[in-house]
């Protein structure tokens, strides 16, 4: 369809390009350099802009939106501090392969390089934490850069990109004619054509190696003790169904990484639970004893493998991943298949016969616990498991759970039984404290009909609790479940176990009163010390959802509560310090 081109200024072109991509929600924060863009945004009520309290909050919100909807998240910020405030959010999205397009504006081209007010080389800053960082100094390059940025963000192994537009390019005019993402992707004589024709890893992958698939089918045939690892790639690829079918067909136990949470139903009988440093005994023991390990969409992070030398030492190790640079990076494998998890597993399934059983192997694996059993404290203090069990029981089953980072994160992942991909939103790779509330805002914006639970700790929440203002303003009834132990619990746990109880700078014996803080922001705040009060607070939160007011439920837990099991860093995976 050939639509006659129009002469538009850069800001309008940017917005038209966002509309081409189907963008209807943007998270951001205005400022001097990006004023032209915000001025045009004023004319486009069809795009919802969510103004956060801080650019970091906006960056996590765009990420949470992307992870919970499967769409590309979009985040705006101005030059200088506006853009550097995004950096932690960009890195968080990068480490967890979340597709977000970050758009910053910079000073005018003639002011670049003069240390102008609010000037920073943000593309330089973000080079190692984006799939690609673009500079636009000429309005003529703007439209295709935005289109390419979206294609790169969502294709291949997804990830964030950043476009830094110099202010003059947002004011200057040039011809614009609309192009659909499909037309752009298949276009001729563009950089896209080169990327496409060379199977560039930024946007795709080569044809699946069918010989390797046959080899894997033969290895499966010979295996008596298989284990499958479900990584974040299964979530991103939408390969849940294929992954589960394969596991059932070869009767293989399934260990789940932090990022893989939700890709397989947490209550599935083959699931051994989380694997790694805080992995279940069943997962870690199975990993050590299996004769075939099939890891799908996981990058064998040190939190999963611990000491790589002893990881799955009795197994043939097979790695299925879309990113060729992940192969043999952390773990040497016996076989690898490069490709999108869904494609690879679909083709593999065609080669695998039904009706295998590995009862002896499963009996061995499930003779170990798949979930930690915590003792009930004698003084009646709330335990993490009690809190999470109450939340799982009272909140709707499809509740989206975002977390911050630390003990509460591990507890949430251990005890919540996630049902579907995108239900768990957590900073797995970068481990960003302060991620959760922003991510919850993004998830709620993308899923207004769903309940969003934000699980956090007092350390993490204090970092970015300013976003309560955003939650309140946009009438987002997010439930913040605060595990308040007046300490940086995970760090304290290490100090307790490894540093001879020298609690250097981890005790948070200080304010604020989080319930009152919540009230100051105009949302509900309540302190709970026992299960009955907790259940009432959660029930009230569910019942009052239509009011659009969020809740901060400040759960007081024991300062010495620990995440169990635990394997020490760089130790062997079965070498539990805590059971």
């Amino acid at each position, binding site marked *: 369809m050939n639509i006659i081109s129009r002469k538009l200024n850069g800001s309008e072109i940017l917005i038209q390009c966002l509309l081409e991509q189907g963008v209807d929600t943007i998270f951001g924060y205005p400022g001097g350099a990006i004023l032209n863009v915000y001025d045009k945004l004023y004319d486009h009520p069809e795009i919802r802009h969510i103004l956060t309290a801080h650019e970091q909050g906006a960056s996590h919100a765009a990420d949470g939106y992307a992870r919970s909807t499967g769409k590309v998240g979009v985040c705006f910020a101005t030059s200088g501090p506006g853009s550097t405030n995004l950096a932690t959010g960009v890195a968080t999205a990068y480490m967890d392969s979340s597709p977000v397009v970050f758009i910053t504006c910079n000073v005018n081209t003639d002011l670049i390089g003069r240390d102008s007010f609010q000037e920073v080389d943000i*593309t*330089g800053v973000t*080079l*190692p934490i984006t*799939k*690609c960082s673009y*500079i636009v100094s000429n309005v003529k390059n703007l439209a295709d850069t935005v289109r390419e940025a979206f294609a*790169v963000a969502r294709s291949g192994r997804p990830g964030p990109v950043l476009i830094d537009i110099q202010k003059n390019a947002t004011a200057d005019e040039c011809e614009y004619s609309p192009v659909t993402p499909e037309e752009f992707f298949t276009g001729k004589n563009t*950089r896209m054509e*080169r*990327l496409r024709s*060379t199977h*560039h*890893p*930024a946007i795709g992958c080569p044809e699946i190696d069918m010989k390797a698939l046959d080899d894997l089918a033969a290895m499966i045939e010979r295996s008596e003790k298989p284990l499958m690892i479900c990584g974040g790639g299964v979530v991103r690829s939408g390969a849940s169904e294929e992954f589960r079918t394969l596991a059932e067909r070869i009767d293989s136990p399934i260990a789940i990484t932090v990022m893989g949470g939700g890709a397989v139903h947490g209550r599935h009988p083959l699931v051994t639970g989380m694997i790694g440093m805080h992995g279940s005994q069943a997962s870690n023991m199975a990993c050590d004893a299996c004769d075939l390990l099939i890891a799908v969409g996981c990058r064998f992070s040190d939190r999963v493998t611990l000491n790589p030398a002893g990881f799955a030492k009795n197994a043939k190790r097979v790695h299925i991943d879309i*990113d*060729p*640079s992940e*192969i*043999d*990076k952390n773990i040497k494998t016996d076989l690898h298949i490069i490709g999108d998890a869904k494609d690879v597993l679909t083709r593999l399934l065609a080669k695998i016969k039904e009706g295998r059983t590995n009862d002896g192997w499963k009996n061995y694996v499930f003779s170990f616990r798949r979930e930690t059993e915590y003792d009930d404290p004698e003084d009646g203090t709330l335990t993490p498991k009690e809190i999470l069990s109450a939340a799982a029981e009272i909140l709707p089953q499809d509740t989206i759970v975002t977390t911050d980072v630390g003990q509460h994160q591990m507890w949430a992942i251990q005890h919540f039984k996630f049902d579907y991909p995108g239900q768990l939103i957590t900073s797995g790779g970068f481990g960003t404290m302060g991620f959760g509330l922003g991510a919850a805002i993004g998830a709620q914006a993308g899923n207004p009909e769903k309940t969003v639970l934000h699980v956090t700790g007092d350390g993490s929440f204090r970092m970015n609790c300013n976003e309560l203002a955003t939650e309140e303003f946009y009438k987002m009834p997010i439930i913040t479940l605060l595990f308040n132990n007046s300490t940086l619990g995970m760090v304290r746990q290490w100090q307790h176990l490894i540093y001879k109880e020298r609690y250097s700078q981890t005790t948070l014996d200080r304010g604020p009163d989080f319930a009152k803080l919540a009230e100051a922001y105009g949302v509900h705040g309540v302190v709970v010390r026992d299960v009955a009060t907790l259940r009432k607070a959660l029930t009230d939160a569910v019942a009052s959802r239509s009011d659009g007011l969020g809740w901060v439920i400040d759960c007081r837990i024991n300062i010495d509560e620990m995440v169990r099991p635990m394997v020490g860093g760089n130790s062997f995976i079965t070498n539990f310090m805590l059971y």
Partner: protein
Amino acid sequence: MQAKENDQNLKRYTIITAMDNEAGVLSQLAHLFSRKGYNIETIAAGWTVDQNVTRFTIEIYSDEERIKLLCSQLRKLVPIHYVEILDPSKSIRRELMMVRVKAEDRAARNEVIQICNIFRGSVVDITPDSITVSVTGDDQKTGAFEELLKEFGIIDLARTGIVAIERGEM
């Protein structure tokens, strides 16, 4: 990884890569090497038959496992067209070296010119006190040339860094 020619596990590798010829690609490329802990021994760049494409020859010390990983990470950069590791037996490596040496009398001048002739180099500048010569070859040849000129007193020396190309198929 610092250049350690004496480290048994490390080998010198020649990587060739082509990138879109636009602002910032060199920094993207160099950044990836430094991020992964490599010191670039030599780097040479220039456009190819297509002026929109810049071709780089880069030499580093690495081991076999890490060089593969580095190449697959390089291939992920959007402006990258291709990345290859050259097989030394199937490729030609050359650099240009220019040296200005002290040559204050006739004997010294003659001797420098003779050495230069043996190396098929050329005299590119001459003054009453010095001669500037250029020579082309692989790093062994330029290294030997440099060694011989040292006794005259090297005033300045510049290398382009290695450029390499695959030999044609026989």
